[in-house]
């Protein structure tokens, strides 16, 4: 605690914590935990209702108004269930794992800015709507996420059972490969914003939110954040169809509830990080931000924009879950290593070169943006209209010489493929013969019978 209170004006961060003391930090920390826990309750209800809506059914609607108290009832049920520790488990690690998962999930929000300076009502005490910030805040978020995986990995291992072990091995591989892509896409934001502090990054998005100029990085981040939180279509560590429920198969009651809690808090975490880094953080969206000299960017309003953006991303999580199927494991790894990482790496090099040009060659920002936009459009057009050398020959050869069609390939009646023609049917030949001459037809038929 004392490290932060004694160095109030830390250079490199935009938020000013000079008025804060230990009590402010305590109150903020408690508020954040309360916010996270209630958000999880609402997120579970939200997810079930929205998915139900997408599947044309009502969803939970019995307990409380619109079924809002359903997740509370579920939490109570989990609390009161029998707590089973399996015989083959490694007792200490078995208990430790869910704690690690939840603890690390709770850490991220310490550096997320909910808003700029807010004044506590009825006083003139003003403080940033953020617990703390330091020059490497986003790296700290990555560190917490990578520690949180230990919960999943150790939980699966300590259960002493096959499916949980497989689930945790999968989750290790998944996290290692997707964190690379995630980190690379975040680095481009660092390069553009010139800082790794969350308040500074939000500050740098005054005129333009980073998701527009850094669209590829944003897309890579969104894909890898779904992978990072083990959500459909990337929920391979807990794939019901394959691994019962993966790393948490042997967990019950409150320990299971902890894993459940950690998963939802992590969803909220990554959405908040995406909001802060790419979607302008607490800044009001464009037409609103211009009203009344930026009235909506001051005071308590920004917390509303932050929450709206965060819940929009949570809605996207649910939407993706309601739309996409679980991927096969090898396809998933291919996507991570052969597509996401190269794309993120290539984009990082591009952004670094561009930023270097801007800084060292002293190019005006507007001309730079226009020139790079034109270059990008030309490139896309060239790639789009480039004659595809590998694909063209195939249909041509197909057109030129129609293949011999074997109607009974491998001993089974088969339809013709595109480019092949059905041979005239034997029955049709008979009809034609019948039409050509009645006398002949009678003869042939008799011949046939004979």
């Amino acid at each position, binding site marked *: 605690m004392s490290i932060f209170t004694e160095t109030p004006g830390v*250079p490199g961060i935009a938020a000013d914590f000079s008025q804060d003391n230990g009590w402010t930090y305590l109150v903020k920390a408690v508020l954040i935990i309360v916010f996270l826990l209630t958000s999880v309750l609402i997120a579970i209800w939200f997810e079930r209702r929205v998915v139900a809506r997408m599947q044309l059914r009502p969803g939970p609607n019995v307990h409380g108004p619109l079924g809002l108290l359903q997740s509370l009832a579920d939490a109570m049920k989990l609390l009161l269930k029998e707590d089973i520790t399996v015989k083959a488990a490694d007792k200490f690690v078995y208990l430790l794992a869910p704690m690690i998962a939840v603890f690390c999930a709770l850490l991220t929000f310490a550096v997320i800015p909910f808003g700029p300076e807010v004044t506590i009502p009825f006083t003139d005490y003003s403080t940033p709507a953020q617990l703390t910030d330091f020059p490497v805040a986003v790296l700290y978020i990555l560190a917490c996420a990578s520690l949180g995986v230990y919960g999943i*990995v150790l939980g699966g291992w300590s259960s002493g059972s096959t499916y949980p072990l497989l689930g945790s091995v999968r989750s290790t591989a998944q996290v290692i490969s997707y964190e690379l892509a995630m980190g690379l896409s975040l680095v481009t934001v660092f390069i553009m914003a010139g800082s790794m502090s969350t308040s500074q990054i939000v500050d740098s998005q005054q005129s333009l939110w980073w998701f527009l100029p850094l669209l590829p990085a944003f897309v890579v981040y969104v894909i890898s954040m779904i992978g990072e939180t083990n959500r459909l279509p990337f929920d391979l560590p807990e794939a019901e169809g394959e691994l019962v429920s993966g790393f948490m198969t042997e967990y019950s009651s409150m320990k299971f509830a902890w894993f459940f809690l950690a998963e939802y808090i992590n969803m909220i975490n990554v959405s908040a990080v995406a909001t802060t880094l790419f979607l302008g953080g607490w800044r009001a969206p464009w037409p609103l931000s211009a009203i009344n000299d930026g009235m909506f960017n001051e005071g308590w309003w920004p917390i509303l924009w932050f929450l709206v953006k965060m819940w929009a991303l949570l809605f996207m999580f649910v939407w993706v879950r309601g739309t996409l199927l679980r991927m096969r494991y090898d396809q998933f790894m291919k996507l991570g290593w052969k597509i996401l990482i190269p794309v993120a790496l290539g984009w990082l090099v591009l952004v670094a070169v561009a930023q270097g040009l801007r800084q060292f060659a002293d190019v005006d920002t507007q001309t730079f943006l226009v020139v790079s936009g034109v270059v990008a459009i030309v490139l896309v057009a060239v790639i789009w209209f480039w004659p595809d050398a590998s694909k063209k020959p195939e249909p041509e050869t197909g057109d030129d010489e129609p293949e011999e069609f074997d109607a009974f390939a491998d001993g089974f009646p088969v339809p013709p493929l595109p480019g092949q023609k059905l041979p005239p049917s034997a029955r049709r030949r008979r009809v034609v013969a019948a039409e050509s001459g009645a006398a002949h037809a009678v003869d042939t038929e008799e011949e046939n019978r004979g």
Partner: protein
Amino acid sequence: MSPGEDVLFWVLAPLMVLVSFGLLVARKAVHVAICMVFVMIGFAVLYIALEAPFLGVVQIVVYTGAVMMLFLFVLMLVGVDASSSLVETIRGQRWIGVILALGLGVILSGVVVQTVFPPAVGLAEANSVTNPVGLARVLMSDYVLAMEVVGIVLITAAVSALVLTHKRRLTPARGQKEIADAKVAALPQGGRLTPLAAPGVYAQNNAMDTPALDPQGRPIAESVSRVLRIRGQQREATDVLLGEHGLVERTSTVAEPEGSAPDEEER
């Protein structure tokens, strides 16, 4: 040192030393890994307290998050019950080890006790442009050559590991389509499109060794594992069905002893 920093150090340092003893004592490899992770996190916290936040956070991201995770990945495959054996492979190994460790301890404590640290200077100037920026300026200007060389060496190591472990595929890969085509092609020779039937489930019996019944009520031989069939350990479906019939008789006689006679005649 501020009092807060003092408290942090004196809480964390003994804990770290205790846990690193666990590294020596623990039998299971995964417990050792957990101790290691704890010590690493302790280091990171101390780095941050000493105003090197970049180093502290990178320590967790790189070492704890990636390197230890890879270690754990391998260790986990050993299984939960595996623990290392305590049999000496070299005679007297243990005593030699203890003596050498004591000697090292004496030398280290002698050096540490004798060292006098001068007061730290230059931290404020070094961190005046924020810690990561100051570090970047040092690394990317004064030591840029060393950085690049290290980078090249690491990439060479990674690529050579890939080259050394790479196996060229001898046969073309069999994808979903090829497997499906092969199944269809094998049909005239008695192949099948569907997976084998699962073993049978009966009212009293649900085991690997009982065959399932097809829609006509005939037992399907392939539904029992091939190994059991070759060993002659499969059970006959008729035995199971007869046993169940017998059960029906017995229960019906228990339930209504008077009216049981006509029932039995019917059968």
